[in-house]
């Protein structure tokens, strides 16, 4: 289910300039479709995570990039580990 930029901004209650910065920083990677970008539910949840980091956890803009990179690595590792566990269990 694709989400338009307008809907994304409304649901995250963020402004367009901030979104552009986040995309420029590659914190968010929307799908480039013509004529407009599209977002997924995962992008929405990721935007919420960035908001939590900045608003609730006191992480500054430089730190957000570091945290996201590590979070992405953790998920990469988790998914790889899940495959290893699944293949170890397979007969």
């Amino acid at each position, binding site marked *: 289910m694709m989400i338009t930029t307008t809907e994304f901004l409304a649901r995250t209650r963020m402004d367009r300039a901030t979104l552009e910065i986040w995309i420029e920083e*590659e914190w968010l*990677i929307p799908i480039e479709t013509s004529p407009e970008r599209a977002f*997924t*539910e*995962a992008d*929405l*949840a*990721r935007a*919420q*995570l960035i908001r*939590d980091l900045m608003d*609730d*956890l*006191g992480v500054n803009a430089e730190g957000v990039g570091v*945290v*996201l*990179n590590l*979070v*992405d*690595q*953790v*998920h*990469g*590792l*988790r*998914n*790889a580990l*899940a*495959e*290893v566990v699944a*293949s*170890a269990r397979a007969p």
Partner: protein
Amino acid sequence: MKDPYEVLGVARTAAPDDIRKAYRRLAKKLHPDLNPGDKQAEARFKDVTAANDLLSDPGKRQKFDSGEIDASGAERTRQQYYKDFAAAGAASPYENSSGFADFGDGEDLFAELFRRQAGQKRRTRGADLHYRLAISFLDAVNGATQRLTLPDGGSLDFSIPAGIQEGQTLRLRGKGAPTRGDGEPGDALVEISINPHRFFVREGDDIYIELPITLAEAVLGARVKTPTPTGAVMLTVPKGSNTGAIFRLKGKGVARRGGVGDELVKLKVMLPSEPNAELEAFLSTWSPGTNDDPRKDMVS
């Protein structure tokens, strides 16, 4: 619902600032996206958030203190967390394998695992053979098919994945020494080193290049042909671009699983290689104005 003061670990008399600090400390520890495998942390985080919602709002806190409301109404239903999507196994543009890329390619990792399981039945497996191979910068960036000539005169053809890094080792299954028993041959392990390029420099997934431009191109602006690892592109140099100005060519860096880097073009303004009488004549009559001193920061 638990007592919100107890959940946050603050006194009933705590100042708003203490509540905020206590919440922040717990949230850093318990945020579900920072603990993707810990269900308990997620449950505790929910309590902590609810307690904070109640106590950080002076009106609600006062009503709670005077017994007008209890803690139960404060619970928010939170939308899903990012981890719920990242764990779905769907291809994600964010997923990052740099936490284990040095284990070898993902497929090799699992192949190795399968083989070890199967190998328990087998006694003898041929030895692994180690090789080193230097490849060109562009082959490392773009990927290529390579031939390795072996000491015994044979050869090995294999493909280099795009974005391979200095020192990375490729495992070629079954290309090692044969076994004397009835097991499989060993693997060939090829350690890759990358030769430097004449003008590209790689840092992580980004490519750096210093692009010489003429004085006229710098002053007047121009469209300049710029090499990238995948072929030249036209770069628009704006009017008045100086030496040191950097332009980013998005997506022209190293493409690897988990993302693609950029090419960063640094301009270098070049005077004509031969002395030029016309330019000299022009400059002797031209002045940039008294305010334009490039060394003004150096005046002590």
